[in-house]
């Protein structure tokens, strides 16, 4: 078990543990911070999976920008009220949710198991996207050569989001 395996184990553990923490923490601010930690673990996992670009993306966009939005939202809402109540509702509901989540997990696992093993066999050498600059170049090709139209559509989607937020927030500013 080399260093990579140890790191993988640590960050996989971290991702799962912080995910559980997000679900079980009462205080929203703490939940948000735990969620950031969860995202950082995932970013580390991406790096270990030979996707350093995505690791950076995860840190910059998710842990950086998106979570900042979350924290602002938390700060804008009055969170004291919910803090007092239990995070979960009655035991019946929790049990039902647990059952559903477990069922979902089991079905997904069995579904993946059903997958023909050949489909999951590495086509090229494992880790073919490669490390370093080559990885970025390959992803860039996939992004801008085959996905150019999708890329533009993402731009339009972001524009839509800006306009939508402005419309919702502006009414508030004017009041």
């Amino acid at each position: 078990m080399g260093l990579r395996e140890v790191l993988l184990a640590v960050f996989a553990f971290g991702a799962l543990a912080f995910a559980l923490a997000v679900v079980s923490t009462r205080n929203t601010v703490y939940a948000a911070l735990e969620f950031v930690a969860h995202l950082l673990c995932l970013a580390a996992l991406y790096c270990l999976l030979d996707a350093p670009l995505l690791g950076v993306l995860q840190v910059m966009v998710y842990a950086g920008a998106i979570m900042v939005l979350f924290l602002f939202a938390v700060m804008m809402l009055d969170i004291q009220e919910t803090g007092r109540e239990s995070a979960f509702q009655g035991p019946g509901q929790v049990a039902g949710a647990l059952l559903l989540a477990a069922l979902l997990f089991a079905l997904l696992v069995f579904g993946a198991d059903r997958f023909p093993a050949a489909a999951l066999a590495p086509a090229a050498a494992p880790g073919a996207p490669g490390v370093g600059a080559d990885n970025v170049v390959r992803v860039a090709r996939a992004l801008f050569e085959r996905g150019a139209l999708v890329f533009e559509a993402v731009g339009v989607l972001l524009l839509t989001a800006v306009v939508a937020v402005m419309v919702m927030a502006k009414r508030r500013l004017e009041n």
Partner: protein
Amino acid sequence: MNPLLVVLFLPLATAVFNRLFGARLGKGAAAGLACASVLVAFAFAADSVLGLAALPAASRQVLVHVYDLLDLASFRVGFDLLLDPLSGMMILVVTGIGFLIHLYAVGYMHEEDAGEYARFFAYVNFFVFSMLTLVLAANFLVIFTGWELVGVSSYLLIGFYRGKTSAADAGKKAFIVNRVGDFGFLMAIFLIWNAFGSLDFSAVLPHAAALSPGMATAVGLLLFMGAAGKSAQGPLHVWLPDAMEGPTPVSALIHAATMVTAGVFLVARCHAIFELSPLALGVVAWTGALTAFLAATVAMVQVDIKRVWAYSTVSQLGYMVLGVGVGAYTAGLFHLLTHAFFKALLFLAAGSVMHALHGELDMRRMGGLWRKMPLTCATMIVGAACLAGVPLTSGFFSKDEILLMALRGPHADFGLWLLGYLGAACTAFYSGRLIFSVFFGKPRDHHAYEHAHESPWVMGLPLVLLAVGSLAVGLLGLPGFLTHWQPFTDWLAPVFADLKAVPEASASRALVLGLMALYTGTVAVLGWIAWRLYTGEAAAHPADGEATSALHRLLWNKYFFDEAYGFVFVRALLGYSRWLWRWVDQGLVDGTVNGVAAAAQAAGDFLRGRVHNGRTRQYAAYLAAGACLLLGLALIYHR
């Protein structure tokens, strides 16, 4: 970058720009931009076509892959453009004549305010883009996209005067009637996909012979249904005359030079499929001939000058369809080319008259206008001469070729020729009637006459250029016995190289000359009759609603097509629906349903209380449960 992309996307870019910012730029900038973009597109189109001409004849096909529209494992359709002699000719017509019409519109639309002005040019540019997509398509998906875009842009343009109910109705009518044809086109595309597993022209048309005869007939007839809708043929022609509600440059651009030729273009493009089915070709040819004749008879009695030209367009499209229907594709396309010139000219000249008379379109109130507007008069006479088929004009050569093919071509029939000949006679009469009533004789409405004036140069210049073009374009397709210099036929030869029997008419020179003499005589006699009838003091125009005979009433009412549609589709459908409603619905269905409904409502009320209760998390639970259910089902049923 391929010049074709500039040809295609420059008009689109200016259309978007003008729609967004044109109103703020002011009239001059908006119009200048629109005209410039079409002119540049024309230059690039000419460049592409010259490049194409430089290739050896057999390999004159350029495929441009723009983008993968769909790339699934078994189904790949690209946004592909095909430049071959056929589409090359079409893009020159669309951008060239389109530019002249843009130029004319600069003057014609001048009285609109800046916002409307920019909107007009945005729509016209968008139309040019749509039409270019249609003709440059390299597969059936792209051609259908262009087909629909043309439908949308024509809807926008016909209903341009959005304050007028009649304009809005005409736009809707054009759209809906076209949809009927589009349904056929779409069905044909499904059948083609089913038979070939591909929509690319290169994968379908050269291998069309693989179709079974029945399938070829079905595909051909369905394709022609689409073509008939766009090209205003047969019973689907009713939208075109109403489409004159749009501004006159639109009538010239859409309903004369470009959009309506799409059907002819489609049949020519897919000739490999039509050639497999004599039945489909027969339907095409007879539809064309009947349309040519019937529309020409209607045009003889109309008094609104734009409406006369509208019916004349339907009639001339009939000739083109007749041409492609008898297997004379080159002749049909040549008529398309000449018609694009002279009919655009005629509409623009009619617009010029209308402009001078402040919107007056009734020829009974005109007369003697040649003194007031000599340029319009001269150019319109040139156009009308081409339309009527006066010897040595372009229309004479192109129509003559079609009629000869109808009589002696590979799928000839005497009845087709007779209908075509009678239609040509009517054409000569109504062209003369219109010219003589409008420009000659004594003015009938002195007030209007006094205020008439010649149009500004931006409107005059396109008229002159189109008149010159109308005369010159005939040189490209002189009759075979006069000269061996046949640029038009030679140019299109690679497209129709697959035809087994080259449609060289098996006609002796004596027959050809005899027919020409017959047409010349007919035109002369009918022109003279029209002169006698319509230049006199009391011109032979009956007033509105005053029917001189049953025949006149039939023609005045355009064979009651609209009324028949009203009766068959609207009245009958309403009656049938009412019967269904009264007996089947209220009696049978409601009786059963009311009981069920009461039960369902009770259940619904119960469920709404329990299920649709506004609790977000409960909804999430349904979502998760549904996902589980689907996953489970997939696990069970997937092997």
